Structures are given as structure tokens and as C-alpha cells.
């Protein structure tokens, strides 16, 4: 592809911006990767307890949240496509839709966590402490991994909100599409992490 060959022959700021973002993203992959390794080892060690733990989770809410996050990735990708064509207002609207879907994801997550906490299933909670060790490990990993992921969603929502406002004000928008592109790259990676969390906890545990 000519544009790709051209981009690699003459690295520019736009490419440098993406390169820097990707370097950050791979550290994020390793951060969650470490937790995935912990999950897979513990699951191999406590298969029955993980199965019992997985049955406690609300599959409907997990799948619903997947649909919400996948859709938010679509609106984000469309926003980047619009900003590249110089349509800052459409990009701002699509970024706004992404933020709303991100908040929707967090709201559903909050409902889910509240149900668990209401049943005493939280780290150090009475119901959790009465469970076998393997199930305690399962819920420990569940809260750690979905919690860390939730923090990433919150960070993404905050960053994208600022970018949406900047786009509306006509700043850093169409003249520097790399800014929104990097916000989008982060958002999509958060989506990829959730793509793995769904089967790990809700479907195949």
C-alpha cells in the first residue's frame, strides 16, 4: 500500500503520535495479561470452585454490557473516520455517543456489583468468607479484573469527554486528528479487554 510505505519511509508527527500511543497500549496489554495468567493458573487449580463462582454471575448483564461496549467502539471508530474527513461536529456527536455508552456500561456494572455486594459477596464480606477457598479466589479475581477494567472505562470516558468538548470548540480537532485517534485507540483496547473478560467470568468459568 503506497500510503503505508510512504508513512514508514518518512515518519511524521502523526505516525509518531500513534507509535507513542501503541507503546503505551502494549504496557496495558501486559498489565491485564499478568492478571489473565493469574486467572488461568487459579482456574486450573480450582476448576469446580470457578465453575460454581461463574454460575453466581448474571450472564444477561454481562452480555448486555458487551453489546453496549462493542457499540461504543463502533461510534468511536466512526468519530475518528469523521474527524479525518474534517467533519468536527459529527465527530463530536459520535464521541459524545461513545461517552454516553461508556457511562451506560458503568451503570450496568454498578447494578451488577451492587447485587453481589447486597448478598455479602465482596472482598472480606460475610458471604464471601463462608465460601470455599477457590470461590473466594474467583470472586477476588472478578472484583480485581472487572474493577481495574471499570477504572479504565472511567478514564476513557473522562478523556473522550474532554476531546468532545475540544472538538465542539473547534480546537485540536480536524487539524490534529491524531489526538482523537489516540483517544479512540485507548477506547478500543479497553473494549478488547472486556471481550476477554466476558467468557473468562460469565461464559466459560
Amino acid at each position: 500500500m503506497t500510503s503505508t510505505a510512504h508513512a514508514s519511509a518518512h515518519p511524521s508527527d502523526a505516525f509518531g503520535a500513534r507509535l507513542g500511543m501503541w507503546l503505551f497500549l502494549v504496557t496495558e496489554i501486559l498489565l491485564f495479561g499478568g492478571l489473565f495468567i493469574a486467572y488461568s493458573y487459579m482456574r486450573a487449580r480450582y476448576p469446580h470452585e470457578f465453575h460454581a463462582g461463574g454460575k453466581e454471575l448474571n450472564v444477561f448483564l454481562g452480555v448486555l454490557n458487551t453489546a453496549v461496549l462493542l457499540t461504543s467502539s463502533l461510534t468511536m471508530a466512526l468519530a475518528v473516520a469523521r474527524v479525518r474527513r474534517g467533519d468536527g461536529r459529527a465527530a463530536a456527536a459520535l464521541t459524545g455517543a461513545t461517552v454516553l455508552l461508556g457511562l451506560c456500561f458503568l451503570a450496568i456494572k454498578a447494578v451488577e456489583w451492587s447485587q453481589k455486594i447486597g448478598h455479602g459477596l465482596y472482598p472480606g464480606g460475610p458471604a464471601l468468607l463462608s465460601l470455599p477457598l477457590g470461590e473466594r479466589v474467583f470472586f477476588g479475581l472478578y472484583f480485581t479484573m472487572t474493577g481495574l477494567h471499570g477504572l479504565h472505562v472511567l478514564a476513557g470516558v473522562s478523556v473522550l469527554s474532554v476531546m468532545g468538548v475540544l472538538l465542539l470548540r473547534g480546537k485540536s480537532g480536524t487539524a490534529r486528528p491524531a489526538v482523537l485517534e489516540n483517544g479512540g485507540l485507548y477506547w478500543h483496547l479497553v473494549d478488547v479487554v472486556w471481550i476477554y473478560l466476558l467468557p473468562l467470568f460469565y461464559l466459560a468459568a
Partner: protein
Amino acid sequence: MKPGGAFPAEEVHGPDTRTLVLVWLALLGLTAVLVGLSALGQRAAVLGLLTVTPLKAALVFYFFMHLRYEGALLKTILLVTLGTLLIFFGLTYADVAFR
């Protein structure tokens, strides 16, 4: 020429709207497949985890994150990272298997 600023030109071509919507539909469809597999039992659910899930992640990387349109450098960086993670997986299992 694209508008100037601190990050002029050098934009890679991204996917068009149609492609993005098709990828989104494929991701939703694969999620349905994953849910269907998990209803068939534990074995099928794990099979789905090991096949359908990486496929979904690849679709996001390739189209939403534009990796399909990037040069060799970014692709290599991602592959090296995933390879590193695989080595960590291997070392962990090599350790616990012989305890």
C-alpha cells in the same frame, strides 16, 4: 492536502463506514455464537474462549484500531508483546507443573 497543524499529513487510510458497521455486526454475531457455545456445556464454552474470543479481538485490532492499514512496525510491536505474554504463560505453567 490535509489541514496543517502539529500533525500534518501522513494519515493512513482507515476503513469506510460500511466496513466499520459490518465489523460491528460481526462482533455482535460472534458474541451470540460465544453465548450459544457456552449453553452447550463447559467444553464448548472453553473452545469458544480459545477460538471466537481471539477472533473478536483481532477484528477490533485490525479494523477499529486500523492495524490493517499500518506498516510493519506497529504490527511487530503488538506481535512481540503477545509473544512476550505467551512466554510468561509458558514459564508460569512450566513452574507450577513441576512443583
